[in-house]
């Protein structure tokens, strides 16, 4: 995707609203984006948690 510098703040809510008002297909795209955000956030959380587990493992082992 070509990235341009937009001088105008289009408004986050307005962007989503303009997708939804495009009709069923637009609403589906907005929903898909919403799902990606939710699942993306979940993956990020999982990824953030994972190293903490590995970091504790050696200590656990040494304790053992």
């Amino acid at each position, binding site marked *: 995707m070509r990235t341009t510098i*937009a001088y105008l703040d*289009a408004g986050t809510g307005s962007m*989503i609203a303009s997708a939804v*008002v495009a009709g069923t297909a*637009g609403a589906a795209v*907005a929903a898909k*984006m919403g799902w990606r955000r939710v699942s993306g956030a979940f993956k990020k959380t999982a990824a953030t948690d994972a190293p903490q587990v590995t970091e504790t493992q050696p200590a656990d082992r040494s304790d053992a």
Partner: protein
Amino acid sequence: MSTSVEPASFRDPSSTVYYQDGAVLRSLVGDAVRDWELLAKTRFFARRQADGSIVRTEPVEDAEGAPEGSQVVLRHDRVPFISYPYEWTFAQLRDAALLHLDVMLEALEEGMTMKDGYSYNLQFVGARPTFIDTPSFEKTSGGPWAGYKQFCQTLLYPLILQAYKDVTFRPWLRGAINGIEPRQIANLVSARDIVRPGVLKHVTLHSAMDKSFSGKGKCGGSQSTKEELARAGFSDELTKATVKGLRKVVAGLKWKAADSHWATYQQTSTYSDDERVRKAAFVRAALADQQHGLVWDLGCNDGTYSRIAAETSDYVLAVDGDEVTIDSLYRALRAEGNTAILPLVMDLVDQSPGIGWRNTERPAFAERGKPDAVLCLALVHHLAITASLPLPAILDWFHSLRARLVIEFVAPDDPMGKVLLANKPAGLFPDYRASVFEVLLEERFEIQRQEALPSGTRTLYSAVPRA
């Protein structure tokens, strides 16, 4: 060579409008250069320039005095007189909105979209709306229209306010350069209005989304949301659906007051009585000695004398404080394809001030071009009696314009004079008399011709300002 940068040209850093010896020029840098090259090749741009609905634009080779760093310089045709949405009627703002959407749809057909959706992207040349902001067009990159919110705030919501609530949008637009916010219009519409076209989607839903997401640091801002929506599959076809939906709503908006007046306007616009014939002949003779550049017809009413002025001038402003009358005049001129008379709504005792950044972004009315001649017919009594302006103050203002003046004095014993005086305490205007007016006029102007109309209560003067 005198060069000055347009004070309003700061929002889009890739494009700067400047003036040089009367020419309107635009300097482009960065992405704007690539977008211009794309735009110049499109069919719709050529077609719209030819019919005047997009300002005629051409590249300038070896431009001298361009702002530092300019990569491309364009020259635009000059708009004869700049006007603003808070001086337009309902029909004018609606036609401007429709043109914005139409060029957006045509751009999308050829792989371009628009960066914004601003009412100030449009001007009027006579009764023809013209799109002036050529750097608005950019190559499509997927995702929704970035100008949707701005279009709603500066074009759709003002029209909805007037069509559905019968509240004129002009004071609001004059007071807020960015228009009406989603939550503001949402608070104004009633439950009954929700079933009206456009309200549920563009007002209620938009306002709710705006409230939920914007300005709270959620979701990474509007630019990343646009990109995310593009990645999720928001195509140009969906943008077209949004724009077509908006177009349908805007095209269906009607302002009842103007519609009913328009119906009678078409039946009653005949001018046959003797006094009107004499007045028309006087005005025609007063302006016949030369071709005038710009004429202001102040208190123009149905535009009869604006049309006479247009016979011997390049451009006429037809200004009146009555929006319904001006709306009908605009519709008549639009139907004729008139590009020489610009109808505007403005109360002369409350003229458009400078607004925006440092009050220079959108200059005051009288700073946008001086007239060569001014018509002031059947107006002075409204200024002097209704608005209580002293006669010397009125004539001082006309004198400051340094233009030929064609002015009518309506005596206090004229039927209209009596109607206006009936609303004021007796004896409040002892100096409102023809003899006083004439002395005051003579002090400031050289009276070249004068004629008393058959009623005996109205006198016309043609005068030029004294140095």
